[in-house]
Every structure is written in C-alpha cells, then in structure tokens.
C-alpha cells in the first residue's frame, strides 16, 4: 500500500529536473556499487563537479541576451543603477554617499545617497576594483552587465547548501539545478538586467540559509553570519521587509507548536539585534526598524522571546506548578497590555509610521487600484495571471505541493521554515507579478525535495531488488529470512518495471523542464527592451534602435543644461544615456510632480505650454509606436497619465478622454483626447 501511494506520488511529482541531475543521481548510485572502497571521495567528486557544472550553466544560460543583442544594460531601472555605479567608480564612495543629483526631478533634485539601496552598486564597484587590482582592464559596463548572472551562479551554490540543510545533499543538488534555469529567476537576472533583484535574491536565500543553519545548530557564529546576510540584503533591495516579517512569523509558529529551544533563542535574538543595528547604517532605511509599522512584528516577537525565556527560567526556579500558573497569567497579561499600549501610543503619537501603500497593496490586492494609481500603473505590480505562473515555473508548479507533502512527512525546524517561506511567498507571487521572483527559490527548493525524495525511493527500490535477485540466483532460498524474501520476490516484476517506468517518466519531465527553461530564456527574457528585434520578410533580423537614436541625439545635440520632459518611464534612460536633466523619472517618490507632468501631457497645447514654461522645460520626449507597430508607446500609457494627473489635479477627468467608456485613438476619439498634447 505504502509503496503504491509513493509511486503515485512519484508519478505526479517526478516531473522535472534537468537531465543532468537525474543522470548524476543514477550515476552516483551505480558508481557507489562499483567502487566500494572510495565511495566517499567518489561522491564528493561527483557532487562538486555537478555543482560546478550547474554553476557554469546558471551563468551561461543568462548570456543569451549578450549573444542575441550585445553587452548592454536593459530596461529602465538598471540604467539608473548603471549611472550611479559609474559615479561611484569615478568619484569614490564618499562622494557617492553625499551625491545630490540635480539631473533628475528638476527643479527639486534628488539626494541619491540617501534614497537608494547601495548594495548593488557597491558590489559591482567592488568587483570592478578587484579585477582592476588583478590587472584585468575591464570596463565597468561589462562588470555591471555580468553582475546578475554571476550572482545567479552564486545563488545556485547557496541553494545547494540550503537544500542540504533542510533535506539532504541530493535535494540540494536538484535545487541548485532547478534554480539555475528557473525562468522566474532568469527573468530578473539575465546578463544586462543590472537591477537590485539580481543580487537581492542571492542575499535573501543566503540570509534564510544562514538563519536556518543557526536555528539548527544554535551557534552564535551562524546567527552572526545571517545578520550580515540580512545587512547585505537590506543594502540591496527593499524586499528585505519580507525577511524581517517572515522570520518572526516563523519563530512565532515554532513557539506555538512548542518547538521553542535555546537554539532558536540564540539564533533569533542575535540575528534580530545585530541585523537591526546593521540595517540602520543604510541611510535609506535609517530608523525604520524601530519606527515603521512594517517592522513592528519583528520587534514584538523579539520581546515575546524574552518573555518566553523569562517564564522558562521562572518555571525552573519555581517548582510549584500552581504558583507558576498564577505567575504566568499575570506576566502574560501585563506583557500583552504593555505591548499593545506601546504600539498604540507609538502609532498615535506618529512615532511609529503606519504601513506604506505598497505594503497595503500586498495584503489587499485591490487597495492600490482604488487609492494609488501610480503603483497600479506599473505592469510589474499587477496581480499574476495563471499563465505566467505556468510560464515561470512550468513543472515546478506541480512539484511544489508534492514537495510540501514530503516536508510535512518529515517535519523539522528546517522544513517548517521552507514550508512557511514557500506558502507566504506563493501568496505574494499571486498578488504581484514581480514577486514571483521571491517565490522562485522556495518553489525550487520544495520541488527539489519532491524530486530528490521520489528518485531516491525509486532507485533504492531498484537497488534492493537487484541485490536480492543476485542473492537468490546464487543459490537457493530459504533460511531465516526466506519468508520475507519470498514476499519481496513476488512483488518484484511489477515493482521493478514500475520503478523503471517512473524513473523514465521523471527523466522525461525533467528534460522537458530544461528545454522549456532554455526556450523561455532565449525567447522571452533576453530582450533588452530598449532595442527591439523583429524578423524581417526574408527571415533576417531587423533591429529597431530608435530609443538609443533619440537618446544619443539628445546627448550630442542639445545644450548640456537642457531639461527634458517625458513620461516617467523614460527618466532613467534619458539621464543615463542622454545625459540630460529630466523632470520626473522612475524613482516615483513625488506623486505631485508626476501628476504635473501628466497634466501637462493631457492638457490642451496652450495650457500645456504654460505648465512646461513653469517647469523650465526645453524638450519634450514622446514615444509614438504607430509606424513600427510598437505597442508600449505613450499613446498606450496615456490613460495612466490622465489617471495620475487626475489624482492630484481634479481639472483632469478621465471620462473626458473616453468615448462611451472606450479608449480610442483614431478619429472617433474624444475631442479632448485629440486636442491635448
């Protein structure tokens, strides 16, 4: 019975894993037999070489974009990161830290040092300086382009160790291979997508791994390491909020399920206190750890831990249970009262800031749509469609529940963690498209557990069979274990064939996964989005490089102090490639300013001229894709300009631009639409 359910599970789960892994698994098993004396070294060698191959695979699979196009920075935000990195390498760290950028958000300007996560830039600059020191005369652009693939490779190593920590080394290897080519992760880490997420996922996984390790060992050293990992994560990406909420949640769950231990106490306290202090060194984060509502959960759990520890101690000191019960009641009540009071006073006095809009929109997907159009206007912030789940995870989507089953079957501190990580991140991935990225490592790890466990079961089935078969043929049956063996033998033909079939099925699915990932990477995720490529009539490639043409024209042929107005999407690119001052850019910190631009764009020409004169604008950049059939031009984004503009200036009303509730751009469009800028 058990065997049957298991094999069924296998059929469902044993979906995918790169062919390499499966083979290696089988191979290690075979070599295990033939070289009995040196098994350990053999296994180590195999493991290291597989890991090395996965490492290289993770790197080269992300180079599609360089081969297809060129070594260039992609999309929008990476251009800002590139520009700041350039500044950092040229001027040094202190200049960078104190940089007031007058080229963006004209006439307000932006304090760069205090409003960005410097982790990525510092990392790239550090790599650059190291290479320079080793006498490799590389260009900073190449370093920036290859930073994300490099960190993706490092992530595979971390995934291996994480998998090893929560399950076994086989699961670690499979996890490493999964994450190396998982499209959900590749989408943010191809060569050229020089964005915070590239290093942040590495930092995220590293922090989690180190924390789980700390919980498993109770060692201060690991907790310290995880605090540093957390520090790196805070310096790299705003997604650190996920860590600072997930870990307390996890600790809380452990407390509730009665898994509290000294190890947990050491790990959490060390990590929280040090991590918090370190995180305060990042100027953009500052004192948020003690002031913002999003970080209060961590603090609450921290105090709860102390209360727990104190109670433990009191319980140890008071041998009398009755007395302890009474004491418990008093302490818990007063602790909760004090906590609630502190929170209430803090919130009321404004010391503790309430949750931000993005945080709300995570918990309540409809919140942004109703209240903050600027968040809703970003396509990355839309709720995820089912198809994109399938696209990004492929078979991992089916392996995920199977992996959860295995985790629940063998419950430990570590598996509880990965289960919680997987479930919460899956929820967030459903709310926002871009958060699929956060869910990817968890999905990979859990699926890896499923694959590894299934394959291990199947292969061990095969192995025992072959052994008994040998024993049986050598001479006769019977003896003390005759009966058990006989039963084994009876089930053999069916089981053996079944196992082989399942293994082949798993192999097939895993290879499908590998091909799917490669296809997705090469077709969907390797486009820089600034250069467009299409197939010409004769199968030749046609490249539309109009963006860069425009930016380069701005750079060469406008006065150096010219101000350019455009919709905020293009802000970073204009400053980085055009080297000119912009009114608004992708760092959408000032909604009013953006709304002003939106208003200018959607007003009649004479009104727009007034607004632009007041903003001191010299040039206006408008993207029109009608000639080449490029769909994401400004006409397409126009409704958002209207909505965001209307959010601040009630003069602008969305219905003015619509005809019977439809958005039209042809002759039948609304008069206001036709006559606006």
């Amino acid at each position: 019975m058990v065997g049957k359910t298991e094999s069924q599970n296998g059929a469902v789960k044993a979906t995918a894993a790169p062919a390499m892994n499966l083979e290696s698994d089988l191979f290690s098993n075979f070599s295990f037999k033939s070289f009995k004396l040196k098994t350990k070294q053999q296994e180590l060698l195999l493991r290291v070489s597989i890991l090395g191959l996965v490492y290289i695979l993770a790197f080269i699979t992300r180079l599609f974009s360089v081969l297809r196009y060129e070594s260039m920075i992609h999309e929008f935000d990476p251009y800002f990161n590139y520009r700041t990195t350039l500044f950092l390498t040229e001027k040094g760290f202190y200049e960078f830290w104190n940089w007031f950028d007058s080229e963006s958000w004209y006439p307000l300007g932006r304090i760069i040092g205090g409003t960005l996560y410097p982790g990525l830039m510092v990392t790239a600059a550090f790599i650059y300086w190291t290479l320079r020191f080793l006498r490799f005369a590389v260009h900073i652009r190449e370093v920036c382009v290859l930073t994300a693939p490099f960190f993706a490779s490092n992530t595979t190593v971390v995934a291996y160790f994480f998998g090893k920590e929560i399950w076994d080394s086989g699961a670690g290897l499979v996890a490493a291979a999964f994450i190396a080519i998982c499209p959900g992760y590749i989408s943010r880490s191809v060569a050229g997508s020089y964005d915070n997420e590239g290093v942040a996922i590495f930092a995220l996984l590293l922090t989690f791994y180190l924390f789980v390790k700390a919980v498993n060992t109770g060692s201060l050293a690991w907790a310290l390491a995880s605090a540093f990992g957390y520090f790196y994560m805070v310096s790299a990406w705003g997604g650190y909020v996920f860590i600072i909420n997930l870990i307390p949640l996890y600790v809380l769950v452990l407390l509730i399920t009665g898994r509290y231990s000294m190890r947990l106490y050491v790990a959490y306290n060390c990590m929280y206190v040090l991590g918090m202090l370190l995180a305060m060194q990042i100027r953009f984060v500052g004192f948020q750890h003690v002031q913002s509502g999003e970080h209060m959960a961590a603090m609450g759990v921290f105090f709860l831990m102390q209360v727990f520890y104190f109670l433990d101690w009191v319980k140890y000191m008071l041998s009398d249970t009755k007395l302890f019960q009474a004491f418990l009641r008093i302490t818990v009540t007063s602790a909760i009262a004090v906590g609630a009071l502190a929170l209430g006073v803090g919130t009321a006095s404004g010391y503790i800031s309430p949750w931000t809009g993005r945080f709300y929109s995570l918990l309540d997907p409809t919140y942004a749509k109703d209240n903050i159009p600027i968040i809703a206007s970003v396509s990355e912030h839309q709720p995820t469609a089912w198809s994109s789940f399938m696209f990004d995870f492929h078979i991992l989507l089916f392996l995920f529940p199977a992996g959860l089953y295995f985790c629940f079957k063998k419950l430990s501190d570590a598996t509880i963690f990965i289960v919680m990580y997987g479930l919460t991140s899956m929820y967030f991935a459903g709310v926002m498209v871009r958060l699929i990225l956060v869910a990817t490592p968890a999905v990979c790890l859990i699926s890896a557990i499923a694959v590894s466990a299934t394959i291990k079961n199947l292969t061990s089935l095969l192995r025992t069979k072959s052994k008994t078969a040998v024993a049986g043929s050598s001479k006769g049956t019977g003896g003390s274990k005759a009966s058990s063996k006989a039963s084994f033998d009876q089930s053999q033909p069916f089981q053996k064939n079944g196992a082989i079939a399942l293994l082949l099925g798993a192999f097939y699915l895993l290879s499908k996964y590998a091909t799917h990932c490669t296809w997705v990477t090469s077709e969907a995720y390797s486009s820089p989005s600034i250069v467009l490529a299409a197939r010409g009539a004769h199968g030749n490639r046609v490249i539309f490089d109009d963006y860069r043409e425009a930016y380069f024209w701005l750079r060469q042929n406008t006065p150096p102090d010219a101000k350019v107005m455009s919709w905020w999407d293009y802000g970073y690119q204009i400053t980085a490639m055009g080297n000119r001052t912009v009114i608004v850019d992708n760092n959408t910190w000032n909604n009013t300013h953006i709304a002003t631009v939106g208003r200018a764009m959607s007003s009649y020409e004479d009104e727009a001229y007034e607004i632009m004169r007041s903003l001191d604008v010299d040039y206006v950049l408008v993207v029109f894709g009608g000639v080449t059939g490029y769909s994401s031009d400004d006409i397409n984004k126009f409704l958002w300009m209207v909505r965001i503009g209307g959010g601040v200036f009630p003069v602008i009303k969305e219905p003015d631009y619509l005809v019977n509730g439809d958005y039209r751009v042809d002759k039948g469009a609304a008069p206001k639409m036709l006559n606006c800028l």
Partner: protein
Amino acid sequence: MGVRRKMALRFDLIIFTILLFASPVLSDLILSKVDRRIDLTSQIVRITSTLKVENEGSEPVSEVLLAFPDLQVKDLALLKASPHEGKGKVKSLSASLPVENVKPNGMPAALTFYAVKLPKALGKGDSYTFDVLAVFAHALRPFPEKITQADIQLVVFQESAFYLTPYVVKVQSLSVKLPESRIESYTKLENTKIHGSEIKYGPYENLPSFSYSPIVVHFESNQPFAVGQEVVREIEISHWGNVQVTEHYKLVHGGAQNKGEFSRLDYQARPTIRGASAFKYLIAKMPPRVHSVYYRDEIGNISTSNLWGDSKKTELLIEPRYPLFGGWRTAFTIGYGLPLKDFLFELEGNRFLNITFGSPMNELVIDNLIVKVVLPEGSGDISVSAPFPVNQWEETKLSHLDLTGRPVVVLQKTNVVPEHNQFFQVYYKFSKLSMLREPFMLIFGFFSLFVAGIVYMHVDMSISKSSAAYLARLQWDEVQAAIQQVENVINRCLTTHDKLEASLRDLSRTGDVQACKAARKAADGLLKELSKELKLVLSFLQSSSAASQILPKVEELVAKEKDLQEKVMAKHSTVVDCYEKKTGIRDSENRVAAQQQKITALRQEVENLLELIDEI
C-alpha cells in the same frame, strides 16, 4: 548675394594693399605656363597647379616661391610639390620636392610664402615643370548659413582667377570642377566658359606679378561635410599576432546649420528630397585581412553598418544613429584588428611598425588628430619617423596584466585631410623573452590559487585549541579514521573468505587436497593477524566517547564477521574432510548446502552493515 559681394570686396582690399607694397620681382624667374585645376567635388578643396618655371636671368636659381594669402593659409592642410609626370599622374608620391615656409625680405605682409627646392639649379634659359598640390580643409563656406530640412545646401568658394605669384606669368588658365551642374552664380570674366559642371577661366597671357582678380562660385553641394573635431586613433601592438586599432571619433556636420524642425517621417519617406543636406553614411577603406571590426558608441553597439571586402581591401560602411544635419554632432568608436605580420617588421634587431597615419574614412576632415601607438610593456629605444611634421610626446598606459604600464607614443596633428593618410614608422626594441611574462604571470596566479586552496584544506585554522567543539571534532575525525580501518579489515577478511571458497572450487576440480590445505593455512594466519588488528581498533573505539553512537553497529559487524568466519572455516573443513576421507559426495553436499545457506545470509548481513556504517 550681398554677403558674397562684401566678402569679395574685402578680399579685394587686402590684395590691393598687398599690391601697393609689392616690390619688384626677386629673381629673374618667370612662369611660362601655369595650369590650375580646382577640385570642389567634395568638402575638401584641392588645387593642383602645374607650373613651368623658366630662368631668364643669368644666375642659377634653385628655389621657387609660392605665395598664398594668409586667409587661405589658415585652412591649408597640405602643400606638396612634385615633378610633373604628365597628366593624370599628379598625385604620385614617389619623388616630392621639399617645400618649406620662408619669409623673404620685402614681400607683402599679408602673404605667406613657401619655397620649393628644385632638384637642380636652373641655369640661364633652363626650364622646369612641376606640380603643386594644395589642399584646403574648410575653404567652402555654406551660404545661406542656415537651411531647413528640405533645403539643399549651397556653398561659396572664392579664389583668384589669376595665379597669385611673385613672378610674371606668361600663359595661365584655371578650371573649377563642381560636384553638380547646378550653379547658383559665378563671377564672369573675359574668357569664361561653362561646360557642364566645370567652369573654365582663361587662358590669360602676360600678367604681371601679384596680379589678382577675385572670382566667387556659389553652387550646390550635398556632399557629406564630415568634420572630425577630434579623432583619437589608438594602435596597440600585441606580439601575439595582432595590431588592434581603436578609433574614437567626434564628428560634426560642417555644412549649413539646420534650422526649424526635423521630421523623421518626411525623412524616411523621401530621404533624397527631405534630407539632401544630411549625411547618412561614411565609408572607411581598411587594409585587407582586417578582422573583429566593431562600431559602437558610449551607449552601446550601433547596428547600422556593413562590411565587405576582397583580397585587396576591406570596406566598412557605417551609418550614424541618426542622419546628421548641419551642425549636428555625433560620437562613435570603431575598432578592428590587423594581422601583425603585415605591419610589424624587424630590422637589425630593431622592430618597426609601419602603418598609415590618418583615419581610413573617405573624405573626412579632421581638425585635431591624435595617434597613439601603444607598444608592448618592456619596449625601449623608441623613435618615430613621420612623413610630415607632427607634435610628439610619450605616455604610459595600464592595460591587461601590466605592472609598469605600456609605453605610448602620441602623435598629434591639426587639419588632417585624406592626403595625410601616409605610412609612418615607429622603431623600438623589444626582447622576445618579455613576451612570456604575461603567460607566466597567469600560470603563477592560478598556481598560487591552488596552493592557497591546498594550504587551506590542510591547515588547522581554529582559534581556540581547547574548546569542546574543537576537541569533539578532532575525536570524531579519529573515530572516523578508526571506522575506516575497521571497514578495511572486514573487507580484507571477506576477500580472504573468497580466497578460501576459490580454493574449495579448485579442490573440486583438481582434487589437490594439499594445495587446499596450504591455502587454508595461509588464510588462517592472515585472519589471525587481521583479528589482532581489529581488536586494537575496537579497543580504541570502545574507549572513545565520540564513537558511542556508532559502536554498537561496529560491534555487531565484527561479531557477524566472526560468525561468518567460523562458518566459512567449518565449511572448508567439512569439504576438505570429505575429500580426505572420500566419504559420499552426496552426503557432504547436503551438509555443505546447509552451511552455505547460512554463509550467504551472514555475508549479506555483513555487507548491509558495512554499507550502513559507511553511510554514517
């Protein structure tokens, strides 16, 4: 028109003053025939004059003076004189005559003089014919100065219809060649003919020295007015077989300024009408066997380029990101590799690089050209020979795997035209051994990396040697070693058993009881030794606290093995006994079969245990 006339007037005045102060002719040379051809087909003005000098005086003369007004001299990019070799061969570079700037006494101040040294002094009545090529870089002025996208570009050129010279000219003629037959206006003098796109003046006879008659031509020219404001060429030599050339261009369209707006749609629909004055592409003529060509700028690769070539030359067509209208700028970089053996030669222990000076672009005027020759690290004794005067200094450059930096020779020249594209040489000394330095550095680097890895694996890095965890780890290592030993011993025991079995099989085949007994004896001895060893290790394991977890398993293993050993021995004895006593084989087989079963079972168990322990 007004502007043009005014300019001409100004020019006139200058010449007039010149003439006022003109002193009589220096020597008795006369120019018996002057034939001038002005080529205006591109933005570069080339004036080729064929002069026939005759000495009418008595003293031999070896110098001929050429005069240019200062206004022209500032645009003068190149002046070259060469012996006349008949028509069509004017550009021959083979034997040019030396030309130098001179300041003869008593000459008008607004003129600049150059002296051409004749190959041999002219005696009385001798004559000599030679060509003078003068190339001007910015002599064409756009008029009107601002045009819209749809306008065509008109330019103005002015010269004198008569050859400006300190000598008397007997016969002279002038022809002006224009790019297109569309001429807005031109100065009409006597004897002026127009022939398609060519205007002819002359012949004029017997004009006194310094005679001057300004002419102005106003015509259409849509040729690319590509001006390189600054071009940096970097030529890097690698002795591993490559000459890498990197050229950084800062271009501007030097023609009429664009005014009004630029409509991409109009341009794309009718590029010849709605963008006639724009220049769309440049063609670079590169040496054959050029490889790894790239074309990019600060923000990335530029995809609009084409490369084709044959065995004699390679042509690269590059388009800027946008069509350049008047006054627009662009900047880009092209780079290519050349085979070393085509350009680097050895001469008496010296090496020298022989490569062209100018940019490979067609019809490009460069205001400021900087050529940097990067020699390999460790070169010395550097010297340069260039066919024309250049500014020169040295720098160093740090590149891949450099410790001290590579020596760089920098040559700088202003006002460069395609005629400057001549070979120049850089001589230097470089020892072959230095070539091996970089590979050795790499080898050493990787070697030290591995050494560091080995050292790290073998050195005990723990800080406190007395901490519990550290001791426990040490102990655990010892225990593992001991267990490994146990496994070894057991495995050897198992092989001994196999040997015994083999001897039994031999026995059944050959019936040689003695050999079998000998094998038994040897096995006995071996097993005894092994059991001694095992005892030693076991006692260690029993004493060690770290092994307490695994000890029961190990003990079980040892016990099982002992059991197995006894069984095998018993079986062996039985079989041998049977053979010795010649008892019924069937009887013995029955007994042996029973024993055999137990042995197989035991062996299986032992192997399972071994595996189990191994996995721990």
